[in-house]
């Protein structure tokens, strides 16, 4: 489908660049990190030129991901503040997941589920970014006591598992909700799409 004349712009070019660079960073940091996560996935280290290269690259790939994620997240924070309306949506989340939307409040640019995802992603990313420095060898780890290195290592793995689960959910939602991927790729959505999934946002921007 070509872009209809009355299509609505949902993600501008800068957003799309940041989103896909974050995604690239996530895949590279994620695959290199999984190589160390469990012996069954050490084979992933071959993608990065062996174990030692994977160890060297992983923190840099993580920083790359965090850079674009936080640039993106800061731009969209104001759209992701939760309000009373969102509480009603969340109470009805099971109805939404069953594919129905009766009695569920109209949603703004992001629905409450997306907002919760947003804040959980921020939490995991911050956790990964901060804890990563505590055991980044050979540069930083020696500055910290061993108990802190151990705690940071544990929390880093917890945040990583959390982030991967969240992104799996995010990816599935984009597949489930048809035309979301096209929207993030080319930036626009049809009026019908906006009206159905984000009615309050549609009322706000659709009139133009």
């Amino acid at each position, binding site marked *: 489908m070509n872009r209809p004349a009355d299509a609505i712009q949902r993600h501008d070019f800068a957003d799309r660049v940041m989103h896909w660079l974050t995604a690239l960073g996530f895949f590279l940091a994620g695959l290199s990190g999984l190589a160390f996560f469990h012996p069954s996935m050490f084979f992933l280290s071959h993608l990065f030129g062996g174990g030692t290269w994977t160890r060297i690259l992983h923190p840099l790939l993580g920083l790359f991901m965090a850079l674009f994620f936080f640039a993106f997240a800061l731009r969209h924070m104001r759209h992701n503040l939760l309000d009373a309306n969102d509480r009603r949506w969340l109470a009805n989340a099971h109805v939404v997941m069953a594919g129905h939307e009766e009695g569920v409040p109209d949603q703004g640019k992001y629905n409450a589920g997306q907002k919760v995802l947003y804040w959980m992603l921020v939490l995991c990313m911050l956790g990964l970014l901060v804890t990563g420095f505590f055991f980044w060898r050979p540069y930083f780890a020696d500055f910290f006591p061993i108990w802190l290195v151990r*705690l940071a290592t544990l929390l880093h793995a917890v945040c990583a598992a959390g982030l991967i689960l969240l992104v799996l959910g995010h990816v599935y939602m984009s597949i489930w909700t048809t035309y979301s991927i096209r929207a993030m790729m080319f930036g626009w959505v049809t009026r019908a799409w906006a009206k159905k999934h984000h009615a309050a946002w549609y009322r706000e921007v659709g009139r133009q």
Partner: protein
Amino acid sequence: MALQSLDITRRSATTTPSPSARQTTEVAKLIDISKCIGCKACQVACGEWNDLRDEVGRHVGVYENPADLSAKTWTLMRYSEVEEKTEEGTRLEWLIRKDGCMHCADPGCLKACPAPGAIVQYSNGIVDFHQENCIGCGSCVTGCPFDVPRLSKKDGKAYKCTLCSDRVSVGLEPACVKTCPTGAINFGSKEDMKQLAASRLPDLQRRGYPNAGLYDPPGVGGTHVMYVLKHADRPELYAGLPKDPQISAMVNLWRGWLKPLALLGMGATILAGFFHYVAVGPKEIDEEDK
């Protein structure tokens, strides 16, 4: 280095059994601190045999030299001055401990290591680093309850005492044992070393050290380097030797529980997503909306 004559019981980041058809005798090094005179011959012998020469450092006013273990110093004499209150008054004791890898039966370094085969445990109990498989992440440092492994600044790999696995594999005792001039360091089967320690204790206890005992901490499954301590009730007097060393609960959670659980969670999430799609179908825009 891989030693064919020493079978491997455990291998880092490996979930299947390692070649282990043969069972070699469990060995141990016994360091009798009451016989040690702090001459550092063991340090020199270690460097000699292993062809290691650490950077010449600066003298900082203490007996430790070099100041710490390093990628090129695998054993180090540590000196502690301790004032003991006795019936006759205060007694100054100079406690000297040969520090280095303890070769734990349950090695925290091996448990934490993510690189397959970078750390192995031979069936005789020796824990060895295979630097050609080491990726330099330092997880072994995180996992060790004794603060022993050191990353080399030159090549980024981790190093520590090998208990002279190359010598032991051909029936020789470790270099430090061979060189010790007072017989403070002994080597043999773990059973024999325990008996040797036990035979030493009555003498020490008679000589005014009622708490003399063997240091073979059960928290790490026992060690293959053991000490005879005059103050076995307070091992921390000996330059901070841990009283009840264990693999940190945080390391156990990280390596033992979290990772398999998280993997299971990821698999379950993917399946749940797929079957949600199968059950509910895509969330499409209704015809009339178009």
